C-alpha cells in the first residue's frame, strides 16, 4: 500500500490517519497503544521518536508522496525550538499545503 505514490489529494483528517499509521509502523503497535496520538502530539517529546525513527518515518512519507514533499529538507531547516515543538498538526498542515 505505502509503496504506491498517491495522486489524489488528501484532506487533513486523511493525512492525520496516514501519519498515525506510519508512526505505528515505525515505533510498534504496543508502544502506540499507550499513547494518545492527536494533532497536538509533539514528535520528539510525546511520541518519543529518536532520530532513527524519524528517518524511517520520513522515508515512509517519501515513498507515499514522492518528490512533491521534501520532508527531510523541511526538517533540516528548523532550529532547535522548532524541532522541540514540532507536533503532528504542523506536519499534517505542511503535507496538505505541499500536495
Amino acid at each position, binding site marked *: 500500500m505505502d509503496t504506491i505514490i498517491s495522486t489524489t489529494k488528501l484532506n487533513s483528517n486523511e493525512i492525520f490517519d496516514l501519519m498515525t499509521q506510519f508512526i505505528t509502523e515505525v*515505533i*510498534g503497535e*504496543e*508502544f502506540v497503544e499507550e499513547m494518545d496520538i492527536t494533532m497536538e502530539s509533539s514528535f*520528539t*517529546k510525546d511520541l*518519543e*521518536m*529518536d*532520530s*532513527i525513527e524519524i528517518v524511517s518515518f520520513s522515508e515512509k512519507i517519501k515513498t507515499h508522496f514522492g518528490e512533491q514533499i521534501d520532508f527531510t529538507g523541511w526538517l*533540516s*531547516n*528548523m*532550529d*532547535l525550538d522548532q*524541532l*522541540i515543538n514540532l507536533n503532528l498538526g504542523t506536519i499534517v498542515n505542511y503535507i496538505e499545503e505541499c500536495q
Partner: protein
Amino acid sequence: MSKFLFVVPPFFGHISPTLSIGASLIAKGHEVKWLGITPLAATHVPEGGEYIYPEADLVEYQEELQKILKRQDDGPACSGPEVMKLALEETYVPIARIMMKGLGNFVDTWQPDVIVNDCITFAGALCAHIKGIPCVTTTPVPPDVMGDTANSAPKIFEWQENLVKGLQQEFGVYGDDIVIHSRKMNLVFTSLEFAGLQDPMPHMKFVGPVKGRPNNVAFDWERLEKATTPKVFVSLGTLLVDIRAAFFQKLIDAFADAPLTIVAATSPDIFEKWPDNFIVSGFVPQAELMPKMDVVICHGGFNTVNDTFINGLPMLITPIAYDHFHTAKLIENAGCGLKIRYKRLRIEDLKKAIFELLENPQYRNAALRIKDTFLAAGGNDKAVQLLEEFAAAEQVMAVVN
C-alpha cells in the same frame, strides 16, 4: 619533566580516563594536577597527583552550579533536540563561565606547561588560549556525535557557533576562531576503526581505551567464582539515577531465575530483594571484573563500552539519551552487539537479544576484532608519548619565538 594540568567537568565518566593517563604521566616523573568545580574523593586521585577544587572562587556560583547538576537528572526524559540544548546551552557553556575565575587564578599560581582540557570542559582551552599556554584536548567519546550540522542542519550549527562565540567574547576573545578545543592535539579514547571516521583531521589522535586509575573497591569474588552459568555484566554508569529502579526491574522481569548470572553495578537498596542469580554491588572494580564476563548490557556510557570491547565481549546497548545513540550505531556497524532503545525495551526482546549474543559467535568475533583495533591504538603508552612529544615541541617553540 613537564607540568600537566587536566581541566575536568563534574562528571566522573569524563574524569575517569584523565585519571588513568595522569597516573602514567606521574609514573614517568611528570607533575600532574587536576582542576574541577566539584570535590573529588581523594581515593580516585593517583598517588603523587593532586586534585584542585577552587572553593573560594566558586562561592558566588554555588547556587547556579547546584541547579546545573540537578538539571542533569532530566536528561533521560529529554528528546534529542532538548538534550542538545540541555548539554550545550544549560551545561557546558555555563560550567565554563563558572570555572574561569578559579581556573585562571590557579593557572597563574602553578604555571602549568600544558593544559589538558576535557572536550566538554571549554574553560580549559579558553583559559589556555587567553594565557598563551599550550593545550591538548581529551575526548572520551567517539567524536562526530552531532554529525555534520553545518551542512545537514544549518540553523542548529549557527546556534552552536553563537553560543560558543558568545562565551569566548565574554572573556575577551573576539574573531571567528573557535578556541574551546585544541587545534593542535586531541586525544580520543577509542580506535579510528570503531569511531568509523574516514578522514579525521590530523590533530585527532585515536589512542584507544586507557586504564590504570586507582579503583580499590571490594567485590564478592568468591560468589562470582561459584557461579557456573554465563555471566552478564549490567551497568548504567554513574548518572541516570532516576531511571535506575525502572531499568533494573526490567532486568529482573527478564532474567530472574534464568540460567545466567547477572552482575549488576547499582546500589542494592533500590529493591528490598533481588533474585538469587543477581550479584548486586554499588561500586565494582569494573576493569578486573570485565574479563570474567560473557556479555555486557549497558546504556552506552563510553567507559563501559571501552571496558567491554577491550575484553572482546559482545554488548546489548540500550541507548537512553545524549551520545548513546551514536555509540549504538557504531556498535551495530561493527557487528559487535545489538541495540534496543531503552524507551522501546520489551522484556521478550531483552531475553532474545542476550541469548542471541551468547549463542551466536558472530558478535563475539566482531568484538574481538574491535579489541584488536583498541590494542593497536596504543592506550596509555601512546597517550603519554604524544603528550611528552607535544610538551617538548611546545617548549622548543617557546624558546625559538
